[in-house]
């Protein structure tokens, strides 16, 4: 398991592995992870701020602060703290090219 990310798994480690794509690269997560957990298990941020230089990694985890919106290759964004990761999900840390 990749352990270089922001989060530390303390319990519930015995779950099926799930693979998703982040910026075109395959990443591992566990079934039942939110997209936020899945991305931060092997990374430090979800997106960059539109209004400052700093990366962002979510804040409230209950769907209220809207800090964790993540781009998908297909276009529409999803809220990483309230969406469960799904096998084969294709995510991006930056907007898709040619996005209006």
């Amino acid at each position: 398991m990749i352990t270089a990310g922001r989060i530390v798994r303390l319990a519930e480690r015995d779950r099926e592995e799930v693979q998703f794509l982040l910026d075109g690269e395959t990443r591992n997560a566990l079934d039942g992870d939110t997209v936020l957990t899945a991305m931060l298990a092997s990374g430090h941020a979800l997106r960059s701020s539109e209004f400052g230089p700093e990366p962002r990694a979510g804040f409230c985890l209950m769907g209220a602060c809207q800090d964790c919106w993540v781009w998908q290759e297909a276009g529409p964004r999803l809220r990483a703290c309230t969406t469960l990761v799904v096998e084969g999900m294709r995510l991006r840390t930056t907007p898709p090219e040619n996005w209006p």
Partner: protein
Amino acid sequence: MSEPSSPRIVIVGAGPAGIRAAATLVEAGLHPVVIDEGHRAGGQIYRRPPAGFVRTPEQLYGSEADKARALHLLFDRMAEEARLTYCARSSVIAVHEGRLHVLGEGGAEVIFYDRLILATGAADRVAPIPGWQNAGVYSLGAAQIALKAQGVALGRRIVLIGSGPLLTLVGAQLLKAGADVAAVLDTSSWRQQMRGFWGLAARPIVALRGLVLRARLGRRYHAGVTLERIEADASGVAALRWRDAGGGERHTPCDMVGMGWHLRAETHLADLAGCAFTYDEQLRQWLPKADRMGRAGNGIYLAGDGTRLLGADGAEIAGRLAAAACLADLGRPVPSVGADLRRLALLDRFARGLAQAFPWPGALVRALPDDTIVCRCENVTAGAVRQGTTLGGGEANRVKSLSRVGMGRCQGRYCQLAAAELIAAQAGCRPEDVGRFRGQAPVRPAPIGALLRES
């Protein structure tokens, strides 16, 4: 099996208040519709992990396991027996003339109501400190949700800051689960905490439990601290600078900071539904007005932490009372409410004690340097809020349009109290004198495509 009743009663939120309100209506033979953002009922306090997770309620909820289990069982049984309609993973984004605009997995839809019970709960009340926009800064509630619903810690070396029961509780829960908690820093001094004694004595067992948890934090816990700033590098949080009660400068390396000063009621829907608001001096926030039973007028009822910050036990009672009020107004037989009202008065005394012991850090906010970010959504600074006040005067909505504070996608949920504090200080008045940000629909971001399909 029953169908949504006539009159149609809609409950928003399936935490302790929403579940008890639903159960009271179901017992009276009605069929409520329950709209909830969660994947499963329970709310934030009794939130359940996704399917396939194996920890027991005792591991997840500690001393509150029996209450959590009872509520989950009760709600699941009502849903299975189709005695209510449960709309999970659905957000009410607008309320207008007896209609709720609801955004669910399948898009947007309109749900009509005759009576509406709002049990929207609360979230962390946060105060900005320099550097809090960086990756790795979370609310205390977030740290608890991550642990409960995902089994993870949000950092390798954690510092918790703020004040209130959640500060101690989250610290103790993380330690127990094996996380590295470097420090738990309370902006309330021991002397201030003692001021809440009389109120806290209303629930001696709960207060004692808090002290036991506090003891488990050992030397990590510091009261009466002053927070200076969060330092960050390219990947996020790197350290916290703070001063201890004696004024000594401290520097604690960490990669995660959890923050929160007790709770802020979630009131956007009550606002859109037309409820009147009053400023609560002690809780230092605007709350929607309702009578003891939760009646807010015009067929609207309020229950739980979204209207009075009494915690989970108080929310269960308030849920029953709001449903009873609804039944009474419909001319139906009403369950007896005397014991619940007496219990609520006791919980209210306790909540007042908490508010005294763990106050909002107004002085800290007023002293923020101009370059501190106040609105995390759009990086609006304290200086911009002060400048907006100088230009437009001490009125919250005018400063909002001049500086964009409160206009980001969280819609002011995490900056409004700090902004009011800054505006008041700049204008030379009290925070309640500057008014409150007007709520605007949609109260959650909604893709335009979903709304087009709805129309």
